[in-house]
């Protein structure tokens, strides 16, 4: 059950995949979306999401994440390129795509005047479920997302976390094989965020649902995603597992701060045996480890052997922000600030659909 | 006193500047009175043929006075909306923090209402004159009419300010508007008091707005009636709603 306080963390893939609900995944080739004024919010995206995996789509505000999601969920026709979701072409077989997917988009998109239960009843009715099944499914989903107690309260009284949970429940009404989550934890407190992560991991691990998750939070992509695509200015700049992407950038570094500042030179001498010095804290010494994370134990032993006492020892692994920095020359935070200061297609009023 | 004045002028400058540099703010408040004037004076002019209707300046002037005072009242109310909007956006907190004499804030809003209404009144009057309105009152009498309008404008603003300061949300808009609307329309709008019948006559007779309307019409027709009573009502309303607004300010201060 999706309840705040459930433990976070990635679910090992081999541990429980009992069956993969989705057999096709998502494929996009040369996907482009152009808006009025020639603004290309999405500029030729090629991606593949394997069935049953959690794909994290990471990028700053205005990078093109939501536009991509809108195209893949058939809400926005592509200007160019093709995409297949659950084995169906998004441009030609929209209705079939929609039958196979669930989406919790960036806005919670709830009616403040309806209760949680009424939302689910409406959603089940729109999916054409028979009356008895509607009731059953409503109660099951309310239970699953922990909203049974609040089911008869109007949504305007819900907290942000509760709204997101209801949003997720609505996306799961028709048991989709592919789930799109557009920045699902933005604005949530850490507890609610962890709870949502657990549920997403369970959906993928237990039920084999393919999850396409967009986020601007590094930690979210790192913890949840099997593979990550990093998007900037409408293009994918890097793609792979979080570990592989980080390894591509470089090896980890270790920073050691001696208790006694007079021992700094001695610490530096020891650390130099394990790697090349790099800029770091002025009080300590930082080197990039030639032997990777595994060399950390040797570093500790060597420092102990020399009788050097440390106030602080820290291993810095490359982050996805480092990956973004290496690929684009900017950090994700800096890119977010830059995106906020320029007008971008994703926030520039209502996009004109190209077809009536 | 100096800080009161500087606060009032600063708040007033902002409101006046925003209104006159944003047509979307100023124009609707001018169009509405013009529209009512057109609908009433234009569409109902035959009512002047009702036996017993003998207003010397004609139906256009008769309706002009109503529209003149109505625009003053609603001009005050619209500025009350602006106060509520400032609270919703958080701008009021900035004003409350910065102003050494907070009562100056209310005075500033009142100044904005006055200036905006004077612009509206000028336009409405010009249109009425172009439409052939007869003005039989003297300069002094017309100044009296203007004075009544100014007092109504300030009174309405102070009423709306009191609501806005207490509720601090635009959702309180109907609370500001409806009592003023009812007060205005339960008065001799279309015909003089003497031609009203039944319950409406009883209500209008007790309605303070009737004094204002009858006095205003008398001033424009050059036959002043109950002017002292009308000014007493207007000044009394200003006094009462000043207290109401200042109490509202205390309430807003306590809310933080």
């Amino acid at each position, binding site marked *: 059950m999706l309840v705040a306080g459930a433990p976070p963390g990635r679910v090992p893939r081999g541990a429980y995949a009992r069956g993969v609900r989705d057999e096709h995944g998502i494929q996009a080739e040369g996907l482009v979306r152009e808006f009025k004024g020639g603004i290309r919010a999405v500029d030729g995206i090629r991606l593949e999401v394997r069935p049953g995996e959690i794909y994290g789509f990471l990028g700053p505000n205005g990078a093109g994440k939501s536009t991509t999601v809108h195209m893949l969920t058939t809400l926005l026709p592509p200007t160019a390129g093709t995409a297949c979701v659950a084995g169906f072409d998004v441009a030609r077989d929209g209705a079939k795509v929609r039958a196979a*997917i669930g989406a919790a988009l960036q806005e919670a998109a709830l009616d403040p005047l309806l209760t949680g239960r009424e939302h689910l009843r*409406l*959603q089940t009715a*729109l999916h054409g479920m028979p009356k008895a099944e509607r009731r059953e499914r409503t109660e099951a989903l309310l239970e699953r997302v922990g909203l049974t107690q609040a089911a008869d309260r*109007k949504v305007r009284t819900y907290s942000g976390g509760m709204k997101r949970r209801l949003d997720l429940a609505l996306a799961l009404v028709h048991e989709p094989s592919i789930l799109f989550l557009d920045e699902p934890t933005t604005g949530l407190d850490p507890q609610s965020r962890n709870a949502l992560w657990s549920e997403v991991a369970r959906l993928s691990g237990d039920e084999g649902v393919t999850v396409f998750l967009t986020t601007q939070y590094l930690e979210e992509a790192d913890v949840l995603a099997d593979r990550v695509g990093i998007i900037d200015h409408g293009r994918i700049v890097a793609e792979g597992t979080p570990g592989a992407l980080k390894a591509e950038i470089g090896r980890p570094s270790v920073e050691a701060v001696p208790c006694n500042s007079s021992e700094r030179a001695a610490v530096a001498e020891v650390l130099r045996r394990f790697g090349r010095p790099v800029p770091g804290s002025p009080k300590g010494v930082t080197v990039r480890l030639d032997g990777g994370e595994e060399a950390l134990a040797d570093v500790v032993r060597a420092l102990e052997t020399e009788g050097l006492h440390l106030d602080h020892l820290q291993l810095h692994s490359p982050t996805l922000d480092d990956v973004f920095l290496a690929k684009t020359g900017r950090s994700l935070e800096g890119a977010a600030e830059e995106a906020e200061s320029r007008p971008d297609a994703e926030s520039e009023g209502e996009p004109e659909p190209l077809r009536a | 006193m100096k800080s009161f004045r500087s606060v009032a002028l600063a708040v007033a400058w902002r409101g006046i500047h925003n209104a006159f540099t944003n047509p979307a703010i100023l124009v609707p408040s001018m169009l509405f009175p013009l529209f009512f004037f057109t*609908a009433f004076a234009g*569409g109902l002019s*035959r009512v002047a*043929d009702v036996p017993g209707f003998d207003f010397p300046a004609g139906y256009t002037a008769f309706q002009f006075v109503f529209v003149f005072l109505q625009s003053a009242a609603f001009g005050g109310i619209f500025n009350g909306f602006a106060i509520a909007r400032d609270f919703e956006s958080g701008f009021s907190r900035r004003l409350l923090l910065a102003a050494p004499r907070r009562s100056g804030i209310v005075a500033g809003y009142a100044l904005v209402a006055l200036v905006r209404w004077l612009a509206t009144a000028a336009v409405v009057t010009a249109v009425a004159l172009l439409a052939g309105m007869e003005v039989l009152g003297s300069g002094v009498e017309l100044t009296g009419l203007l004075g009544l309008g100014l007092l109504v404008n300030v009174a309405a603003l102070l009423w709306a300010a009191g609501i806005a300061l207490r509720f601090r949300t635009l959702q309180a808009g109907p609370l500001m508007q409806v009592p003023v609307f009812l007060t205005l*329309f339960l008065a001799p709008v279309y015909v003089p008091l003497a031609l009203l019948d039944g319950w409406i006559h009883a209500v209008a007779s007790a309605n303070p707005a009737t004094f204002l309307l009858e006095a205003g019409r008398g001033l424009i027709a050059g036959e002043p009636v109950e002017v002292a009573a009308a000014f007493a009502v207007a000044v009394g309303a200003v006094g009462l709603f000043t207290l109401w607004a200042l109490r509202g300010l205390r309430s807003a201060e306590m809310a933080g």
Partner: protein
Amino acid sequence: MTRPLALQVGSLARRSVVRTLRQPVNVVPSFLFPLILLAVNVGGLGAAERLPGFPTDSYLDFALAFTFMQGALFATTNAGTDLARDIQTGFLNRLALTPMRSAALLLGQLAGIVALALIQATLYLAVGLVAGVRPESGVAGLFVVVFLAVLVALAFGAIGAFLALRTGTGEAVQAMFPLLFVFLFLSSMNLPRNLIEIDWFRIVATINPVSYLIEGIRSLIITGWDAQALALGFGLALAIGAVALAAASVWLQGRLARS
């Protein structure tokens, strides 16, 4: 209507009605305001009964029709604002991701208007009857009054839906309210057209379709069965509704923009 479409329309209609009735701040004024204005106008303009050529000896009978028009105006803004909110919050996107047919959305939306208009019309008629109105068309005429009033509300509601779909914002819909109000006032709402003295005003009232909507309802109360007035009233209500619905449908397709 096929069963799935009926289910969709029913679900969306239920939501539309529930939502409308859960907003007393919007609903109560739409009931009270027209009645207050009626009382004020009848009190203030009752003397107009004495004008030579006035078609009835009761200004209340004459003015009652206007309450239905005002009710319809409220229906426009309520319907439009609700739909605009769905667009702004992304709820329309949520609906678009279901098998919902766009016809279901419009029909469901309009069902809420029908429900509100029925309650309004019944209320106004009841108040009128209590106050002494005696329709010349008899009991059958009462039903036709309600029917025509609901049709007018539907037509105006469709205009509201079109405005919402065209602009996508509730503020823009609200901003149209004064314009629609102007249409009401520049009509034969307060005096019959032949008694409007000012030429340009009379011409505008003659061109204004709202005059004929009012006169259609009014004829059932003060005249009886006036075929021409009814034909014009029904015809224009249907025409306005059809045009507005068509325009709303076109813009809805654009809003949904689904493949």
